[in-house]
């Protein structure tokens, strides 16, 4: 009997129903600052975003290297890095926060959950508190987090020179897509 209890106790400790951390190294964040007056689309994609979700607390971290944004045009990519984001000075952007209604999310049950994520967003060396609506879709052990937000470039001291004026949007649209797996 004692042995059974011991075995059960060991089993309970050794195999929690869900790993504590869900992560991805290949989350996708795209940046779009196209306006109707842009000569072509101003869009960069970063497929190398690191993302960690604590499955116990709902703590959520995203981090990306600015230099990993890819634009179709090299000139645009160069301007993005050198003139706007100054990626030599500020190589990373980061979000550190929490799913505020994490109690509504059941990572063990397939479904789509509406969430609100709040925390600190650091872009171009400037940190601001943001609150973003998003969804978490759970399917067969993986969770996909998606969100779309608009950020005012001026809030993060990203200057758009008056020469380009209305050809670059003042508010960029950021799309986030992270397929998280247990690690």
């Amino acid at each position: 009997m004692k042995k059974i209890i011991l075995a059960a106790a060991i089993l309970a400790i050794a195999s929690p129903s869900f790993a504590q951390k869900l992560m991805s190294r290949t989350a996708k964040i795209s940046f779009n600052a196209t306006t109707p007056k842009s000569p072509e689309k101003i869009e960069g994609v970063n497929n190398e975003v690191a993302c960690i979700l604590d499955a116990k607390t709902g703590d959520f971290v995203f981090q990306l290297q600015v230099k990993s944004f890819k634009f179709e045009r090299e000139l645009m990519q160069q301007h993005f890095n050198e003139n706007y984001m100054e990626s030599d000075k500020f190589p990373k952007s980061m979000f550190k926060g929490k799913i505020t209604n994490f109690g509504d999310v059941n990572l063990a049950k397939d479904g789509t959950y509406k969430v609100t994520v709040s925390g600190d967003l650091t872009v171009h060396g400037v940190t601001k508190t943001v609150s973003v609506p998003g969804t978490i879709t759970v399917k067969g052990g993986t969770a996909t987090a998606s969100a779309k937000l608009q950020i005012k470039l001026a809030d993060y001291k990203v200057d758009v020179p008056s020469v380009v004026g209305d050809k670059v949007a003042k508010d960029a649209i950021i799309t986030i897509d992270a397929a998280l797996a247990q690690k």
Partner: protein
Amino acid sequence: MNKKMIFRILIGLVVIGAIGAGVAYKMWTKPHPKAEDQKGIAITTVALAKEYGADEKAADAKYLNKVIEVTGIVGESEKNQDGGLMVVLQTEDPTAGVQCAMREKNITVSKGQNVTIKGFCSGNGITGVSLTDCVIK
């Protein structure tokens, strides 16, 4: 000013304009730089991770946005949402590998394989040092 002179000035302006347009077009359509066209700084994944772990600022000054050639053992690989491959090379720290985002999609590597990968260093993050636009050497 006679007519001939005006004609010459006009021709001159057209030529300057054409050169300007040519230069602008060349800049606008210039290709992305490629890691394989440059000489890379050769280093092992273990040494690179150690340098970044010890002093990120100093390591950034040395490696950030430069072409580096890392040699290490493949720990795992991950497909991104657009079908691209991220190869994670092992370091002494199991939670922080050197992450290499490959340029070509149809590359295969196997776990445990010893490889040298060339790419642009994009800095250190919560899951390790990153290299982007990489090719296998």
